[in-house]
């Protein structure tokens, strides 16, 4: 079975996000970019399934600018076998990505797609679900455990109030939650090997997908600054403020 893992290039989770002065978006010039952490978990899960003999090939796919190659190399340094870059400078929204992935799925015919549940930049949490819908495949989102036996998929999901276990036929789409696994560190030999693994470059046009944005961003603002705290003189004063100012009791 082939597993397809979409990986997104996002601003590194350690970077302090700055809004552009004109409010048109977030400043990404000279900012460190990395693989979306949920996608790392997806890559890790796919590699584990390969190591367990369930999967035969892990293909990473990234949609976006040319530098997404670095993200693909990172996935291959973890253990993915090859990469596909769908290259475009157009700002990509979840629906466009889902359509691109659908086209790649039709080309590659994987038995399973493992995606991150969301990307830490826009936190949209849509692409995996849209992809499953477009393909007409079953989906299991927010996976915290994945088991494949006899062509069937058992996925444990984290839901409000507990765990839900689903059984799905293959092919299917899974999205990963934080506790699914701990991604491995790329080792030096694997980083060197990744350099020699192939990356195919495609374009939205070649895949016949229109990626024109459907949503327009009107304005991006910094979150409101936290106000300085106040020292209260007594418990009574605290209760008074909680009741009348904060209105929480």
């Amino acid at each position, binding site marked *: 079975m082939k597993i397809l893992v979409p990986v997104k290039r996002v601003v590194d989770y350690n970077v302090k996000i700055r809004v552009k002065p004109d409010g048109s978006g977030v400043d990404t010039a000279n900012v460190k970019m990395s693989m979306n952490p949920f996608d790392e978990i997806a890559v890790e899960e796919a590699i584990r399934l390969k190591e367990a003999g369930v999967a035969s090939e892990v293909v990473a796919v990234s949609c976006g600018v040319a530098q997404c190659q670095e993200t693909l190399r990172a996935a291959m340094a973890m253990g993915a076998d090859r990469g596909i870059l769908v290259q475009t400078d157009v700002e990509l929204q979840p629906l466009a990505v889902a359509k691109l992935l659908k086209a790649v799925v039709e080309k590659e015919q994987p038995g399973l797609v493992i995606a991150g549940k969301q990307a830490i930049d826009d936190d949209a949490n849509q692409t995996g679900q849209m992809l499953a819908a477009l393909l007409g495949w079953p989906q299991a989102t927010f996976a915290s455990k994945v088991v494949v036996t006899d062509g069937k998929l058992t996925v444990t999901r984290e839901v409000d109030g507990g765990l839900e276990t689903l059984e799905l036929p293959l092919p299917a789409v899974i999205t990963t939650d934080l506790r699914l696994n701990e991604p491995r560190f790329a080792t030096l030999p694997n980083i060197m090997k990744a*350099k020699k693994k192939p990356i195919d470059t495609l374009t939205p046009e070649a895949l016949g997908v229109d990626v024109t944005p459907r949503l327009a961003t009107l304005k991006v603002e910094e979150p409101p600054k936290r106000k300085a705290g106040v020292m209260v003189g007594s418990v009574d004063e605290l209760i008074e403020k909680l009741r009348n100012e904060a209105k929480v009791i």
Partner: protein
Amino acid sequence: MNSSKSPYYTPEHEAYRESLRRWVATEIEPYADQWDEEGTFPRELYRKAAQIGLIPMGYPEEYGGIPADLFYLIIGAQELARAGAGGVSASLLSHTIGTPPIVRGGSPELKARVLPGILSGEKISALAITEPSGGSDVANLRTRAVRDGDHYVVNGSKTFITSGMRADYYTVAVRTGGPGRDGISLLLIERDRPGFSRTALERKMGWWASDTATLYFEDCRVPVGNLLGEENRGFRLIMENFNQERIFLAAGCNGFSRVCYEEALNYARQRHTFGRPLAEHQVVRHKLVDMLMRINATQAYLESLAWRIEQGERPIADVCLLKNQATLTMEFCAREAVQIFGGAGYLRGNKVERIYREVRVNAIGGGAEEIMRDLAARQLGI
């Protein structure tokens, strides 16, 4: 360090730096204080360090190594330094001084027997040159090895040996011939040879997590097959080894200097005195930029020298000067960082206090500053 626009680092170098940074932050940093206070760290860390590539890098593939240029070694030393735990760095990577003479001088059988274990992190390699009578004057070392049939019989002692308690293989400088540098050889001595014992050197100023030891050899019989290089030609091997050690040590020192700078900068931004962050007092911000100026100069020297060595040059004088530049920079940065921390910098349990205590070992070990100056001057014909 900040090398994204550097001519020396490829995307693979950067990817490895990235991976190592996370590895150090996960596997070492959270435990650094605890390990230092306990005076040791789990032996398991050697295997983990081997897996990520830190131990096998720069060694031949046939023995389990990963061929890699000097820039990978620099990345290794500097990322490890981010934990601010010099004792862990020193013992974990003691093979960087113990193992190169085995690679250069060991017989094929010896290499096949010991290198795979070392490079996979199963076995620990140490270098033993320094003796109680002195470490700077290597040419006059006293430990004797006398040929007896197909063995050498070793008598004498070594001291200040990093990984001295836990090592499995010791690369030991011995006198096999007459006085001076032309009577010195290197022998590989296994830890369980009868007549070989060791005691721990405890209560050091720094490097607490590192197992430093004194070694004793009493009629210790070592097979002649354990000779590294030719008999009485060991001095050259030792000197070649020092060159690589000094580059590595300089890289680590500048990593520690960088930690001092980053920690001090963070602190200076958060700590307020006289109604302002420390960083907004001119005296303090000037300290910070003076640190950075020295760090950047040292890094540039280090990288340009590494590049020249990669081109096949052997710039011995520059290696000596680089080592001093790196230790003097570390001394300056550690001093200024502790000063910026004020009283908090005097308390154990933070990186800058520990690095402050680890300055001198770098300025003394691997060739003391005075020795470096003199060797550089002689090399330059001054």
